[in-house]
């Protein structure tokens, strides 16, 4: 990616030698540097860029750094946008971006993670930094606006953002304004005052106009700088100044039209022609101008125009690259389209050819599309897309593909397949099938031609050679995304048949997809083996970074197999691998700790489980994959559940819900079912039954692994609602299915529920048979919570088992876990209604100096939950404020007796 950065976009414009000093505005900019954001918002030609350039050149900012990014239409791709923004900062602070750039190029990174990393890097910057985003109105992409809003909100104090735009950006400006975090310079501020106009005409341009003439010009232009500049150019070397000004004042034509015509008329024919023809370019350099005009001397011409102040803006210090001032360029293009309509396409074609010779394909593609030269544009896109896909600029690629006529795409299998890949990566399944069929038409034994008789077109032979494998891989991914496991495996096999031995990425991808399909079908041993094999191949193909995070998938499979020790080993090995990489924390590390926490929770090591989650959190969002935000909250919810804080658990699950990300791993533990389990424990059986109805679950359902967790939950709901018989029938079938798939983890839970169901029927003997099987399966791996979560009835059953001599050592150990975390109040309280453990925790913190949000965060509950606890404490203590609650607690000696964890 760094190779394709256009350096001129990062150039800080130099101050023109002759400008009007504007201390009133520079001072305001300098004072604004302590705010977060400066917005320079005014229409075209109001001198926004010039003002910023001269302020930056003159303001005394010792050690202060300046980064500049000139935006254009092509930056409407979040990946491209942030890559450029980081590149701009790197021009003055090379250390910034090491982590964030890597994140941009990684798979599926949410933009907040990239920005989080970037903000950390900026935070570490020893110097002050001003980052200017010029021409921000070119940005239309909503995700970029959201990213900027996020960025502005979290900017470190020594970094200041300046946005120059023709339209107010869709940011929360009112809020920033109200907090004094926004400095604005608008059209009314930028207009030349009569004094500034006088300075400009008479000092800068040496036109020596009379006061009356100045007043007329200032009035007619209303201080619009572009118009004043054009007027000055029209006046230079003119004898009949008074007459010109009189004519100008008495005319109500669009002022720029009027003045540009005046200026153009006074240019020699070859200059005028040069200006019109090169107006199709958004950047100008001598050789490119020569190619477009089919003349020589472009470089000299540009320098002459620059000297004559003919609206050329320098883009570097070497007099190589320029652009026209935007407004002037627009007027030139309107003239060109009007005077030489037939020429426009040809000029774009010449520009495209020049860029192609320079191997700058994105610009070549842009001009080819403007020329309406779609066939050639498609050729170029076909050659360029692998590089773009690697740089993860799917939005740009999508823009090009959308600009090409469908008819033409359909004859190009490489592009049709690329299109399918872009759609799949954005999760848009609609259209994938059609694009893949378009590609497949040309891969069969007989070469068809389409309805118009057009044959197949292939430009990128390398891509075409590997196309059958790539299409089959996309087919497999599409089938898996739609939940069709048989087709997933079939297509993955085809991909393997097609892909040559050394095509590790296709082969590894296909194998991994087969592993995921096996997982979704509940065949866990095959899933584990196949997925691990696929990932090893992907690693051979050079994708090291993902390997660490993939451990989550492997560990999840191990947990379902009931192999907690293997799962833990998987995480430990991945952490080891990550620590061997050196340097920054490897992405996925945070996921490992969150995964380990779940294993520790199952062993009832709740403090260790909490510590692991805190470690995961401390590592920061950038060291976790996007899915970790969801998994972390689920893990925390289950710890709260284990500690008996069911409301807190529900809160966390609700918080997790919107963070769920669809990926190709099966969602084997849907969050709605997790919530239903908590409802059961809260004895809200009616609501839990509502959940089952809403999801159309019944004991008659065919069983499949993806719905196993929901069906076990249904059995729990039925048990709680007094339908033990129905529950038993379902549990018998579930047990059979789990045994068949080698899912020992599921079997243990099902057997535990069977034991409870039999106990309800009064069949103690059958209950103990089930329980003994569960204990035998669970003992080697050290499961605890799967028993303890079931409460006093399970404790009684275990005591009965112990009497019967079943796994006595293990059962004794399990029995010690009852009543510690889940159970008995830890103090005897002289209250009619005793405080719960959680309420005692809150009470202890109420006696400190922490405020509400701090207490909530210390206890890792939402503010709402904390308030509910507080209210309940007040009621039970018969008080109505915090101080009284603490005093009453001291009187009752509740605080001293609370053990600290």
């Amino acid at each position, binding site marked *: 990616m760094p190779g394709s950065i256009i350096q001129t976009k990062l150039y800080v414009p130099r101050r023109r030698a002759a400008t009007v000093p504007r201390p009133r505005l520079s001072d305001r900019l300098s004072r604004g540097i302590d705010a977060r954001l400066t917005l320079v918002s005014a*229409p*075209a*030609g*109001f001198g926004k860029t010039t003002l910023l350039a001269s302020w930056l050149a003159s303001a005394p900012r010792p050690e202060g750094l300046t980064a500049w990014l000139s935006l254009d239409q092509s930056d409407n791709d979040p990946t491209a946008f942030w890559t450029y923004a980081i590149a701009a900062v790197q021009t003055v602070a090379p250390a910034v971006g090491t982590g964030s750039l890597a994140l941009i190029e990684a798979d599926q990174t949410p933009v907040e993670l990239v920005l989080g990393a970037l903000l950390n890097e900026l935070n570490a910057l020893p110097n002050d930094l001003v980052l200017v985003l010029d021409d921000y*109105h070119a940005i239309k992409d909503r995700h970029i606006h959201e990213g900027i809003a996020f960025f502005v909100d979290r900017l470190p104090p020594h970094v200041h953002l300046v946005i120059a735009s*023709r*339209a107010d950006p869709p940011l929360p400006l009112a809020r920033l304004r109200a907090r004094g975090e926004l400095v604005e310079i608008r059209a009314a501020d930028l207009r030349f005052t009569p004094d500034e106009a006088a300075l400009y005409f008479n000092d800068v341009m040496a036109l020596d106009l009379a006061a009356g003439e100045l007043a007329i010009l200032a009035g007619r232009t209303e201080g*619009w700088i*572009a118009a004043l500049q054009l007027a000055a150019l029209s006046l230079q070397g003119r004898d009949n100044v008074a007459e010109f000004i009189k004519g100008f004042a008495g005319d*109500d*034509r*669009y*002022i*720029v*039209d009027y003045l540009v015509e005046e200026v153009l008329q006074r240019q020699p024919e070859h200059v005028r022609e040069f200006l019109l023809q090169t107006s199709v370019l958004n950047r100008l350099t001598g050789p490119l101008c020569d190619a477009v005009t089919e003349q020589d001397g472009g470089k000299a011409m540009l320098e002459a125009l620059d000297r004559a102040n003919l609206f050329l803006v320098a883009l570097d210090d070497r007099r190589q690259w320029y652009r026209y001032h*935007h*407004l002037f360029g*627009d*007027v030139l*293009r*309107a*003239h060109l*389209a*009007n005077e030489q*309509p037939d020429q426009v396409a040809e000029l774009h074609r010449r520009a495209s050819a020049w860029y192609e010779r320079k191997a700058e394909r994105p610009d070549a593609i842009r001009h080819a599309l403007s020329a309406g030269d779609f066939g050639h544009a498609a050729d170029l896109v076909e050659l360029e897309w692998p590089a773009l896909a690697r740089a993860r600029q799917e939005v740009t690629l999508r823009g090009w593909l959308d600009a090409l006529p469908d008819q033409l795409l359909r004859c190009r299998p490489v592009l049709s397949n690329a299109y399918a890949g872009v759609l799949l990566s954005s999760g848009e399944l609609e259209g994938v099938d059609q694009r893949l069929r378009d590609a497949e038409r040309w891969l069969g034994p007989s070469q068809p031609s389409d309805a118009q008789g057009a044959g197949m077109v292939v430009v990128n032979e390398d891509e075409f050679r590997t196309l059958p494998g790539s299409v089959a891989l996309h087919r497999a991914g599409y089938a898996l995304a739609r939940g069709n496991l048989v087709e997933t495996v079939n297509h993955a096999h085809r991909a393997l048949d097609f892909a040559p031995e050394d095509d590790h990425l296709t082969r590894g991808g296909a194998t991994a997809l087969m592993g995921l399909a096996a997982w979704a079908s509940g065949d866990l041993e095959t899933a584990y083996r196949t997925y691990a094999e696929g990932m090893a191949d992907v690693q051979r193909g050079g994708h090291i970074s993902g390997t660490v995070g993939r451990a989550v998938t492997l560990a999840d499979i191990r947990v379902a197999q009931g192999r907690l020790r293997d799962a833990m080993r998987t995480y430990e090995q991945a952490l080891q691998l990550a620590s061997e990489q050196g340097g920054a924390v490897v992405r996925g590390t945070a996921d490992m700790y969150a995964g380990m926490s779940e294993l520790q929770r199952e062993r009832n090591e709740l403090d260790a489980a909490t510590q692991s989650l805190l470690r995961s959190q401390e590592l920061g969002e950038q060291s976790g994959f996007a899915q970790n935000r969801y998994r972390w909250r689920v893990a925390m919810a289950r710890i709260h559940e284990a500690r008996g804080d069911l409301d807190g658990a529900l809160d966390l699950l609700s918080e997790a819900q919107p963070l769920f990300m669809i990926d190709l791993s099966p969602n084997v533990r849907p969050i709605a079912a997790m919530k239903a389990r908590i409802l059961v424990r809260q004895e809200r059986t009616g609501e839990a039954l509502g959940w089952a109805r809403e999801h159309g679950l019944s004991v008659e359902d065919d069983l499949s692994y993806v719905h196993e967790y929901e069906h076990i939950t249904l059995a729990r709901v039925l048990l709680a609602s007094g339908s033990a018989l129905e529950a038993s029938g379902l549990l018998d079938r579930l047990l059979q299915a789990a045994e068949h798939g080698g899912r020992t983890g599921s079997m243990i839970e099902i057997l535990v529920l069977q034991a409870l169901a039999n106990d309800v029927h009064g069949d103690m003997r059958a209950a103990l048979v089930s329980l003994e099987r569960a204990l035998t399966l669970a003992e080697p791996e050290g499961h605890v919570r799967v028993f303890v979560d079931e409460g006093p009835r399970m404790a009684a059953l275990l005591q009965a088992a112990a009497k019967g001599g079943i796994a006595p050592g293990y059962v004794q150990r399990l029995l010690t876990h009852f009543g510690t975390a889940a159970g008995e109040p830890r103090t005897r309280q002289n209250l009619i209604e005793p405080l719960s453990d959680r309420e005692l925790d809150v009470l202890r913190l109420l006696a400190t100096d922490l405020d509400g949000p701090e207490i909530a965060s210390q206890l890792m509950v939402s503010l709402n939950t904390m308030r509910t606890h507080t209210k309940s404490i007040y009621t039970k203590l018969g008080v109505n404020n915090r101080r009284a609650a603490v005093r009453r607690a001291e009187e009752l000696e509740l605080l001293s007796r609370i053990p600290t964890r």
Partner: protein
Amino acid sequence: MPVNEGGSYEIRLKGHLAVRWADWFDGLTLTQESDGSTVLRGTVVDQAALHGLLGKVRDLGLPLIAVRRTGEQP
């Protein structure tokens, strides 16, 4: 009316804009009024196209006086 629907529109600008700009505004008709304003008339396919036109008005620095919807899309 669904939000994406187009229709005929009138866009009134301050100042007289030369007829050559009709192309720039995607073939809208362009009328110079006696009060010194210019009116662009034509149909747009949807709201996005309308906003595209308004963006072009903005890019020329022309003061916008009024935008009026004059009819449904045929």
